[in-house]
């Protein structure tokens, strides 16, 4: 078997040195919801310990806080060096998963998480602590964060009477987010681009894998059951914005489903009570949801294939807050329609909610629903600005100026440059993808296009029925927004949104409490690392797995693994409590 390749990089991803390790000597343990330290021994070690200084590239040294990457056959693991010990020629390196970098305490307003999604909240705190921290030594080089899904919920510290609380990012937020809501922080390391991307979200849409624990290739099966009968089976929610203090109850039923129907209850009753504030379903949040939905949607518009299950799931998650407006999505064609629907439904809301990032906003001057066919003298206007979802670009067909009233295009903006569609420039600088504000007076006879996320060649694809706007002053903008907010159309949209989200929040709290994902119990399966049937190192963390053992199916998810010394791999699965309880009942335990 080929040795595993070890490479060492400093904090800035500069290469330091490399070494080999015999696979038979390599052990590794990974647990998604706890901090694990791993060690490896290089004997003799080609790497020497760098005590001081920054060293030079390729100097075959290793130091604390360096990044160590182990490339095995078909898998790659990495960590941050936390301890180095040299005994004669042997070097023992201790390292932890990068998640350990988030073992950090911060002061936060106790109910802040109710204002935003859990993923966005994790991102915000990680960004503040490790990306934008004014103490540059605390900044993790190359770290970027991304939210992949949107989930609302609560944590225990949200119900404290304190206004501010100190929380540990790992123990009070990231690990509980996984335990309660299956929201994980998944890393993506790219040495070449010197980036460590933390992707925050739920991987709900993996297909369930089925493993038979009784097959001969499974060397060892270990099922650890922790019995518990005092978990809450009734949830009471009180809306603090409701002076009547209406209670919303959810019940866990004997088949371990849950809803608000008061029947088929579990005994004895354990009742958890939480409060929440429906006034937090704000217009800002509406705006943020719409922006988020569009940002996800942009990736998939006009793709020439059916979406994968995972992609559909991601879109549906992203758009979940806008569900009242939206149909379900199955194919790319439906998706395009779906996207158009979002666009049409919310464009007016978005336009009214353009943050004052320019001195200008747009006043609607006409409803323009008669789109002309693409042809000469037509203009393509992309609304946008520094905000990536609304890029502002002005283009015109090459060589034609008819229809463009030059007097209505302030500044020196002329067609020039590339073939096909041309970019209007300002002082030689292309306006698209810049932060420059363009106040173009639009003729009501123009064809208006919206191009999202770039400048596609098939321009007709992007046509929308839109209202036409002309620039107004900041005061006009404020007035326009206020007027819009008072309109019946806006009230109807926001009411729809608010109702839907009120229910979504209630359901989110219930889901968090009753736990699709309380993995208190464990199943461990041991197979060889290169087992071709199970392929243990190819199963992504948090993938749902049905494990069949002695005729019983255990619903579980992968939460960790260990590479054992003798070429074996132990897979560690968390087991869903309610499913397990059901199994125990079946067995008469």
């Amino acid at each position, binding site marked *: 078997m*080929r*040795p595993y*390749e070890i490479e060492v990089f400093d904090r800035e991803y500069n*290469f330091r*040195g*490399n070494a*080999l390790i015999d696979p038979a000597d390599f052990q590794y343990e990974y647990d998604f919801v706890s901090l694990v330290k791993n060690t490896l021994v290089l004997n003799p070690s*080609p790497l020497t310990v760098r005590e001081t200084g920054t060293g030079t*590239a390729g100097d075959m040294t290793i130091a604390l806080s360096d990044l160590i990457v182990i490339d095995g056959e078909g898998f790659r693991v990495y960590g941050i060096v936390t301890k180095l010990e040299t005994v004669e020629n042997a070097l023992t390196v201790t390292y932890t998963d990068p998640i350990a970098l988030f073992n950090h305490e911060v002061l936060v307003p106790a109910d802040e998480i109710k204002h935003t999604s859990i993923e966005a909240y994790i991102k915000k705190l990680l960004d503040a602590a490790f990306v934008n921290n004014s103490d540059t030594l605390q900044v993790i080089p190359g770290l970027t964060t991304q939210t992949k899904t949107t989930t609302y919920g609560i944590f225990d510290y949200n119900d404290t009477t304190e206004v501010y609380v100190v929380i540990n990012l790992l123990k009070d937020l990231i690990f509980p987010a996984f335990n309660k809501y299956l929201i994980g922080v998944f890393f993506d390391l790219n040495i*070449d681009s010197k980036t460590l991307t933390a992707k925050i979200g739920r991987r709900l849409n993996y297909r369930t894998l089925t493993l038979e624990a009784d097959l001969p290739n499974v060397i060892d099966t270990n099922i650890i059951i922790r019995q518990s009968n005092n978990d809450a089976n009734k949830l009471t929610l009180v809306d603090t914005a409701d002076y009547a203090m209406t209670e919303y109850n959810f019940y866990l039923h004997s088949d371990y489903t849950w809803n608000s129907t008061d029947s088929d209850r579990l005994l004895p009753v354990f009742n958890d009570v939480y409060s929440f504030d429906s006034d937090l379903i704000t217009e800002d949040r509406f705006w943020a949801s719409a922006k988020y939905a569009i940002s996800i949607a942009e990736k998939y518009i006009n793709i020439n294939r059916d979406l994968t299950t995972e992609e559909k799931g991601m879109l549906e998650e992203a758009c979940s807050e806008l569900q009242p407006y939206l149909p379900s999505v199955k194919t790319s064609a439906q998706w395009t329609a779906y996207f158009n629907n979002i666009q049409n439904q919310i464009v007016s809301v978005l336009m009214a909610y353009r943050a004052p990032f320019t001195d200008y906003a747009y006043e609607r001057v006409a409803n323009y629903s008669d789109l002309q066919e693409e042809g000469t003298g037509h203009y393509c206007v992309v609304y946008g600005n520094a905000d990536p979802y609304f890029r502002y670009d002005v283009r015109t067909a090459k060589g034609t100026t008819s229809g463009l009233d030059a007097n209505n295009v302030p500044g020196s903006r002329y067609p020039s440059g590339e073939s096909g569609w041309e970019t209007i420039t300002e002082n030689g600088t292309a306006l698209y993808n810049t932060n420059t504000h363009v106040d173009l007076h639009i003729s009501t006879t123009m064809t208006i296009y919206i191009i999202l996320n770039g400048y596609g060649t098939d321009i007709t694809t992007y046509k929308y029925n839109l209202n036409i706007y002309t620039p107004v002053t900041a005061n006009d903008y404020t007035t326009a927004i206020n007027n819009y907010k008072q309109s019946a159309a806006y009230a109807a949209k926001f009411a729809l949104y608010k109702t839907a989200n009120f229910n979504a929040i209630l359901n989110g709290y219930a889901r968090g409490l009753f736990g699709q994902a309380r993995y208190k119990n464990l199943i461990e399966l041991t197979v060889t690392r290169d087992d071709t049937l199970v392929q243990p190192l190819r199963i992504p963390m948090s993938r749902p797995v049905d494990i069949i053992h002695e005729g019983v199916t255990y619903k579980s998810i992968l939460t960790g693994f260990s590479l054992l010394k003798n070429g074996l791999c132990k897979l560690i699965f968390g087991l869903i409590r309610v499913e397990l309880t059901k199994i125990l009942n079946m067995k008469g335990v």
Partner: protein
Amino acid sequence: MDVLPSNVDKTEINSSLGMDIGIELTPLTMWYRTISASAEADRVQIISDSVNESPCILTFSGLTVTNDSVVWSQLVDGSSFMTGKLNEMTVAATDKIVVRTDTNPYRIYQRIGSTNTGVYQHSDFETKRFPFIQKGVNEFRVSGATSVSVEGKILYETV
């Protein structure tokens, strides 16, 4: 096979048979056979009949690049197996780039005249880079090279 003598026994000198000396050898490697191939082209082929993958030395020259990338690849029986890349390299046509997996640790260096300079740090660390000869027809390609050679110890299982 590389071996290390671990024990030597001798008998007393016998008038008719002389003296017997028994030497125990400890194997340091599997049985192997050294093979090599070279071509004055941008690619070279080498065939292995062993099911074990074998470490090797890949050497190429003839590249002229300035602050640009150097890319090599390995195909096994016509299918892509591995790609390696160095970034921001400056290489003269007479220089040799050597990628070795027969050493511990692996090495990537540039030979200018008779001087070897390590260039491992130029790696595109997202590429696999390291050549191992597989069973079948192995083809090593280096875009822009005029000479490519490969030398490997083909390892055999024995019982």
